[in-house]
């Protein structure tokens, strides 16, 4: 098995889907000859040609709208947002056009909108957002957030094959920092299924994206203090894997919800409500959230460090919860 970066794994996943299905094509800004701002699509133009790897003008609304039109005509477009922050410029086409078509008149809209999200690279307020919840609050969409290279490949392939509009959040901090063994053969990681990344018994950390690494590091540190932590990686936020979450809650009886996104209206709030509705009797302590504060993502390194939930914050909150 080859060791691939998270970024290479996404590229390989797209590549394989383009090989096996002629209806898959790519569109976006600077994705063809240039290979994309982060080079995710490098080499695809040379292999698949300019009818399947299409550079567009700077027109996010037209990119998404055109993807919808092509999807309705039987294609499987994969649209890149140069940064997921700019997805807001195509918002209407996503949340009103793409998301509601199947419910209204039954047509399939198999498309993927993908791109880099997240902070940690000093990108400032407009190149760092974790804006997944804009879409988790829109019935009709699926929202995917890979944390490992293996999953990045398996999830992009599953997203491309899905018959619904999928918003695929790649974490730019992980692009070249995360490496895994990634099988060269065809496999998918099914949408809607979480993964237990580490088994534990005292408390469960439920998280996703770049925070999976943070949680695992914290769990390692907590182990030396005698606290056994289970780490659950959601992988898909919409629909999310209720069963897997509840199993970990029941096993550990204490739960921490962790995300890089801001607090109010974040995924943690939704999960806290679901857990108290469905597993109240199993809880031995308050459901704890560790998140970014409710501010834009600041630029200057000390501010960004403060903004991001780090290992230390997780460890401290876990100690308190374990002692509860």
């Amino acid at each position, binding site marked *: 098995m080859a060791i691939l970066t998270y970024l290479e794994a996404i590229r390989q996943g797209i590549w394989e889907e383009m090989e096996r299905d002629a209806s898959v094509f790519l569109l976006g*800004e*600077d994705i063809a*000859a*240039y290979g994309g*701002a982060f080079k995710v699509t490098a080499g695809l133009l040379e292999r698949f040609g300019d009818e399947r790897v299409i*550079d*567009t*003008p*700077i*027109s*996010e*609304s*037209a990119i998404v709208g055109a993807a919808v039109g092509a999807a309705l005509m039987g294609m499987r477009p994969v649209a890149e947002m*140069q*940064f997921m*922050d*700019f997805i*807001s*410029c195509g918002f209407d086409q996503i949340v009103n056009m793409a998301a509601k078509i199947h419910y209204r008149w039954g047509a399939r809209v198999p498309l993927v909108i993908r791109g880099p999200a997240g902070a940690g*690279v*000093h*990108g*400032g*307020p*407009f*190149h760092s957002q974790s804006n997944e919840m804009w879409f988790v609050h829109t019935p009709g969409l699926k929202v995917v957030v890979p944390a490992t290279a293996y999953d990045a490949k398996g999830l992009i392939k599953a997203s491309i094959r899905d018959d619904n509009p999928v918003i695929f959040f790649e974490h730019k901090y992980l692009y070249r920092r995360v490496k895994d063994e990634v099988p060269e053969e065809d496999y998918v990681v099914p949408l809607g299924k979480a993964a237990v990344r580490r088994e534990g018994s005292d408390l469960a950390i439920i998280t996703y994206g770049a925070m999976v690494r943070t949680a695992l590091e914290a769990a390692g540190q907590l182990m030396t203090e005698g606290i056994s932590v289970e780490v659950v990686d959601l992988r898909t936020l919409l629909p999310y894997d209720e069963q897997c979450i509840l199993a970990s809650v029941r096993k550990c009886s204490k739960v921490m919800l962790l995300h890089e996104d801001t607090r109010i209206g974040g995924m943690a709030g939704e999960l806290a409500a679901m857990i108290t509705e469905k597993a109240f009797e199993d809880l031995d302590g308050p459901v704890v959230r560790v998140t970014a*504060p*409710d*501010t*834009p993502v*600041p*630029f*200057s*390194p*000390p*501010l*960004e*460090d*403060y*903004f991001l939930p780090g290992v230390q914050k997780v460890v401290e909150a876990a100690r308190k919860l374990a002692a509860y």
Partner: protein
Amino acid sequence: METARGASPLAKSRTDRKKTPGPDPQLLERMLYYLKLTREAESRIEQVLYRQGKIVGGVYVGRGQEAIGVGSAIQLVEGDVVLPSHRDFSCFLIRGFTLRQILCNWMGRANGPTRGRDNTLHIGDVNRGVIPIISHLGDTCPVACGVAMVLKRRGKNNVALVHFGEGTSSRGDVHEAMNMAGVMKLPVIFICNNNAYAYSTPTSKQYAVKDLAVRGAAYGMPGIVVDGNDILAVFSVVAEAIARGRRGEGPSFIECKTFRMSGHSAHDAAEYVPHELFEQWKQKDPIARFEKFLLAKRFLTEKQIERLGAEVTEQVDDAVAYAESSPLPEGASAAEGVYCGPDCWWKESSR
């Protein structure tokens, strides 16, 4: 599309006419000063501070395009508003931000205008009539319309200038704004710096017309093409557009043909740009051209130009040293200032 000629720093001003007839040499010198200061500051940022890791994140410069920012913003008067693009460093200087403030912002310092919250030229001050971009391209064009609505109502003949790239002109927001400005006859000057590339994308993949300026007609306003590397030409078409705006005749669209003499940002080697293009456009460098003109017409001497060069180098040295010795913000201050309120954190310290 038209090619309009308006006022020029070479025209005889009314006061001049009484005294010695002739152009305004002081204005010409100020223009050269801002061109050179911008070039020097941006070079330092891109080629020194970024490479030394002292500036982090995205770094965009307007090398080769300085005549557009200077030739337009230099004409603004009290009450006018400018909304510069990410390549219009000079506009901030012209409207009174100090180089120290600007460098502090680039370096994420606590005493920069955004106090480390945002980077690069995302620096605003309504009192100075500067409204900065957000990264989302084109978003300032509709904002310029709102600014202009108020300027019009105030009745002081003020105008709004909004700068953006040719790639940005593909955004719906730009089209909505141009249409609204046309319908409402708003005093907005839309200045498109057409530098041949939008990141790696050449104009042939961006739009299907020869000149973007034809779009002016579609929105009921003059559309003018100008050589963006000729500061006097930029000055005169912008002067005419501003005059129209001040007379209440509505918006204008100006397409400045220029070239991006850098990568898209400091990390981009721009290998997709044919090398000859850089060579060709180097010959049209707006600063060298303007200096040649000033020397030929004896507005300035070699010596004076040299002195100006030394002066701007000194100012950049000073600003860099100042910014480097300025403190980074306290981490916990990130939580402050999201909302405006009675105990607003922004009001507490002077800006």
